[in-house]
């Protein structure tokens, strides 16, 4: 599996959260890789463990209640889970950076935009003040903020949501990271602004030849931005494929169900397909395949044993042996 261009690979990661009475297996043996210069999407519903798995890359899981049980995260030959806090600190922001969902709360309201970006650079680099300023302005320009010299001294509340998210991206770019993790960066934004930000991320990814791990629940966004996709459900990856493959030949009942249940004008008048039931509570997951209570294809074995990934070739894997037996190749 080890590919030469692998930038980061997460192997069989397991993360639990515990409270007084229960243990929630938030991430339950997840493996994925992000290669150099590609955009990978982790897609899944709330509580499927997509954010948790990304936060564990940066060692940002609070413990307690969180606890990384097993697995490894290899980045540049090092296992990030084994590193100390100081070594992680050097990697955070510098080699791997993160953009969060809420542009309102992820900027500190009492500092100016300029302060916060220069700070992001200064943590990792020693730079002369005027050069620092130049770099900041350049960063703001890069993320498409008009009149960056004026914006430099603005406070976060003076910017619109889209601009704030741009500033967040500028901060994430501050040290030219190799990997940017974007956790639902457009969910809180309007569609037209979302389109701007997606466009920006795409062009930045290309111009800076970095990799992006993009976390979202929105299949439309996935289709638009991703090179490869991992679909998560209840703490496990149920399907992985190149984007085109996934949308045109989904191989897991969950992915199929999600795609079929998206409404649009052309489905008018037809009844929408809907996946019955609800997303399982991470603390009370069903045994066997976690999707079986909602799956139209479930057989007895699904209730007992969580299936392995079935390989459809061309890096298209899906965790459903039932469909695989019916139709192993395209």
């Amino acid at each position: 599996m080890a590919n030469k261009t692998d930038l980061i690979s997460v192997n069989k990661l397991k993360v639990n959260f515990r409270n007084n009475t229960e243990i929630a297996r938030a991430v339950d043996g997840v493996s994925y890789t992000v290669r150099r210069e590609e955009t990978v999407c982790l897609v899944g519903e709330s509580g499927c463990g997509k954010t948790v798995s990304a936060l564990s890359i940066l060692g940002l899981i609070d413990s307690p209640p969180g606890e990384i049980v097993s697995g490894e995260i290899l980045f540049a030959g090092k296992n990030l889970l084994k590193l100390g806090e100081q070594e992680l600190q050097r990697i955070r922001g510098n080699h791997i950076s993160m953009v969060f969902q809420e542009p309102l709360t992820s900027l500190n309201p009492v500092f100016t935009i300029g302060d916060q970006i220069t700070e992001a650079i200064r943590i990792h680099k020693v730079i002369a003040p005027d050069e620092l300023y130049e770099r900041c302005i350049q960063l703001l320009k890069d993320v498409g903020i008009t009149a960056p010299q004026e914006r430099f001294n603005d406070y976060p509340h003076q910017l619109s949501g889209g601009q704030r998210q741009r500033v967040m991206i500028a901060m994430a770019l501050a040290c030219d990271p190799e990997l940017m993790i974007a956790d639902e960066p457009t969910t809180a934004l309007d569609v037209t602004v979302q389109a701007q930000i997606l466009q920006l991320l795409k062009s930045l990814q290309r111009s800076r030849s970095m990799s992006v791990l993009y976390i979202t629940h929105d299949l439309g966004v996935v289709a638009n931005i991703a090179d490869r996709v991992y679909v998560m459900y209840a703490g496990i990856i149920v399907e992985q494929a190149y984007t085109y493959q996934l949308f045109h030949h989904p191989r897991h009942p969950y992915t199929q169900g999600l795609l079929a249940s998206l409404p649009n004008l052309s489905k008018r008048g037809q009844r929408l397909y809907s996946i019955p039931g609800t997303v399982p509570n991470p603390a009370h997951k069903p045994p066997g395949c976690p999707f079986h209570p909602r799956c139209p294809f479930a057989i007895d074995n699904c209730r007992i044993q969580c299936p392995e990934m079935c390989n459809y070739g061309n890096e298209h894997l899906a965790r459903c042996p039932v469909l695989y037996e019916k139709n192993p190749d395209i």
Partner: protein
Amino acid sequence: MNLEKKTSQPDFQLERPMAPKSSQIKEFWLVFSNNRLAIGGMIIFILFFCSALLGLFLTSGPDPIFDPAQIRLQEKLRPPLAKANLDTLRPEEVPRMGIYFFGTDDLGRDVFARMLQGAWVSLTVGFVAVGIAILIGIFMGGIAGYFGQHYLGAVSIDTLIMRIVDIMLCFPSFFLILTVVALLPASIYNIMIVIGLTSWMGTTRFVRAEFLSLREQDFVVAARALGVNNFRIIFRHMMPNAIAPVLVSATIGIATAILTEAGLSFLGFGVPPPHATWGNILSDGKRFIFDAPWLTFIPGIAILIVVLSFNLFGEGLRDSLNPKLRQRR
């Protein structure tokens, strides 16, 4: 893959609740019971409550079991756990079990009996004063929060009430109480009422803030859209959701009221003399602090423990009633 055709059965398998049934009290207890300090506070709270109630029965009536007013000058300033000198006492003067559990004071009165009597005073002062404060606070806060945007002439109701609160907060309340108590005939009821009337402002602010945020909550809007009347919205929808922080502040408020009463009694403005309170036991004892330190320490430590336990209990309540903390999965 023709998923649409595959499943003709609709998505109507009836939905059942996700989580197993659990009452809110049970969940509250789960969090609360993990907080040892709060549990300790609650146990002392209950002990104090029981002993105060018991104290009322044991120290009152025509022939009390522990007589707090019995003067035995020949037995003055006996240390704690001292045996009564049976030779010098008349039979009706002999303390129960022939022992002074907490010693005697300068008039030879049994400090244990006096502490029991004082416990009841502290308890009632605490509860009645805070009860008054809470009632006023909920009423004022509720009006300010719910009807605040209505105008009375030039100012809105909210502005009016909150400015009254500000003015009340400007007075140093202890001195206000001192003044009022000096003017009124000294009685335990006056003290309760005065303490209550000067400590409702915090609750008002709490309740107003809660109501303001609850007003905007969707379930309240839904109730309004259904045509539920104001009375029911306030008491059925908003109050139960606003009561938790009030309860917390009440618990801590009781501690403050007990302290205030003790302070007043210490200064001699409290409950009139023959009646014992922890404050005046402390006050009487201060003259003998070197000869009879127990007269100062026993009521002092009792006040400390009770106030501390109420505060710990209140903090514990706050932590376990806080829905943000509780909804964490």
